[in-house]
């Protein structure tokens, strides 16, 4: 793993009308590394991914921050140049592979398209890629249409088409959420192997702490448009220092807990962007919150063990 990050997101802020959706999100991903962004629905994971790809819907504006790809700031380059970046330097896969694939085009032609070549010219390369993503009988599959394939196979096709041009960065937005657990395990193994073999920097977006534990080298936990805590996966899971991370982990039923025991609960519900107020956005649900938490925004600060935590009481959590 080389040290220069493949992707740097700096202080990214996004808004819709007057409401801020994402506030000062930043992270880096090195070649061959899997970085997970985890959080409950609506916390801003997908819009962050769309902003990195410069694929934000019209209603959402980037109000601050930079995105560096291989050291180059891509946040302001023209759309024409951005089109060359997408697919060549940076690719994205989604939750619903069937919806992302063109139903009328064969699997082989869609993968060849990522190379901007007719299938005839790159057939051998496409077959190799299909084999590499674990598609059995690639000679037959290459000429099939997406509807002839299962969800798991379609996700493999998406991965093949995203990675065949050897991009430096892969953004995977809930790539296994629609799949069954046995298929999910296969796809996660595949992503990990390809990240290492091809030295791809992977940003993996998920709501599932189990997926993070399985595959991520580092993790950023998001809450209400901000990063609550980020750092090496092992450290964050072993000793969460943000009350939200701690409660989230304690609220999940585990194969090792006492059946029917009371699970930790986070009272209330996730706020929507129009309800984001001053102070820590978790304050209204946080058992440790005091007057300062409600008034001031806790900065995301290093705690000295490679992690960053945005909580005034992080030291007390140790």
């Amino acid at each position, binding site marked *: 793993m080389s040290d220069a990050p493949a992707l740097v997101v700096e202080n990214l802020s996004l808004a819709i009308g007057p409401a801020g959706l994402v506030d000062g999100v930043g992270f880096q991903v090195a070649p061959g590394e899997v970085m997970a962004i985890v959080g409950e629905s609506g916390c801003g994971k997908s819009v962050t991914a769309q902003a990195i790809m410069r694929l934000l819907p019209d209603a959402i504006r980037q109000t601050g921050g930079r995105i560096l790809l291989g050291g180059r700031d891509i946040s302001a380059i023209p759309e024409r140049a951005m089109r060359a970046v997408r697919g060549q330097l940076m690719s994205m896969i989604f939750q619903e592979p069937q919806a992302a694939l063109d139903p009328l085009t064969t699997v082989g032609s869609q993968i060849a398209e990522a190379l901007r070549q007719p299938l005839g010219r790159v057939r051998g390369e496409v077959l190799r890629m299909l084999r590499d993503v674990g598609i059995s009988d690639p000679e037959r599959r290459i000429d099939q249409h997406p509807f002839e394939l299962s969800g798991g196979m379609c996700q493999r096709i998406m991965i093949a088409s995203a990675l065949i041009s050897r991009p430096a960065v892969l953004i995977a937005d809930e790539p296994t959420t629609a799949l069954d657990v046995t298929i999910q395990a296969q796809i996660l193994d595949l992503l990990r192997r390809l990240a290492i073999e091809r030295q791809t920097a992977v940003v993996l977006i998920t709501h599932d702490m189990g997926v993070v534990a399985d595959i991520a080298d580092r993790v950023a936990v998001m809450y209400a448009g901000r990063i609550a805590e980020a750092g090496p996966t092992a450290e964050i*899971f072993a000793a969460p220092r943000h009350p939200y991370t701690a409660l989230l982990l304690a609220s999940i039923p585990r194969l090792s807990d006492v*059946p029917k025991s009371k699970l930790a609960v986070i009272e209330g519900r996730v706020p929507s962007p129009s309800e984001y107020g001053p102070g820590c956005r978790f304050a209204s649900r946080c058992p440790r919150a005091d007057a300062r938490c409600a008034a001031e925004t806790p900065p995301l600060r290093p705690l000295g063990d490679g992690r960053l935590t945005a909580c005034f009481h992080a030291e007390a959590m140790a």
Partner: protein
Amino acid sequence: MNTLEITGLKVHFPGRGGAPVRAVDGVSLSIAPGETLGLVGESGCGKSTVSNATVGLLSPTEGSVKVLGTELAGASRETLRAIRAKAQMVFQDPVTSLNPRMTIGEAVGEPLLVRGLARGAALREQVGALLEEVGLRADHASRYPHQFSGGQRQRIVIARALALRPALLVCDEPVSALDVSVRAQILNLLVELQARHGMSTLFVSHDLAVVRHVCDRVAVMYLGRIVELAPRDELYSEPRHPYTKALLAAVPEPDPVTQRAKPRVPLEGEIPSPANPPPGCRFHTRCPLAIDRCRVEEPAWRPVGAAMVACHLV
């Protein structure tokens, strides 16, 4: 008497290509009073079809479904209506389960009103008590579903299901549409209600950790059949069927140390179509252990220790 007794249940749907879809193809299970039985398996294995047949929403193609001793297969309308009061269902999606034009008080009180069990002030009082029982307030009764979050709506759906004090609660993926933090609230509520009312529950989920948390016994389904049924601790500590083992190995556990040390049980290929299930053991096309016998001979459903298993090699 068991609260639920299902024997040799088959539910087939007309298929597109002529062959019927054998959604449920020979399922037997029972639930004792006060017991919670988990039904797990991957999507399309027939869990919802079993649930729907249990509350009389689907009629069996073959076999028997008895709730409190009363047969649902071929039952008259009146019998079905009487049984539905005893067996209530909670669905996955709390948004589509509630009529947006009814106040939640009307929704929760409807089963009582329709059956002439309460009205006026007595109904209001019972509705208020039901709402409080699921962690809402009595004065929420005049509000509409859209004024509530997903988790609160699932509480409303549960209050409605409890209104008739059913002997059997059928929960089909009751927390699958909810976020993690809300899921814990609803699971705690379900465990608490079970303890308080002692009702029997059929708890359907694709999530093995959730099922372990709330159930006493667990049935694992694959392609329309149950492959293993065992007491909870037995099933999780000593899974016997190769499919149960593979499922447990595939659950991503929220602990990097355990998760990364876990041996993978790679399953070949994909789940076959229930319109054309494989001969012999239905799992043989994906089973890491399959031998020639598995490809031709159906494994018998037989007791092994405290479990029931269908596998030649167990």
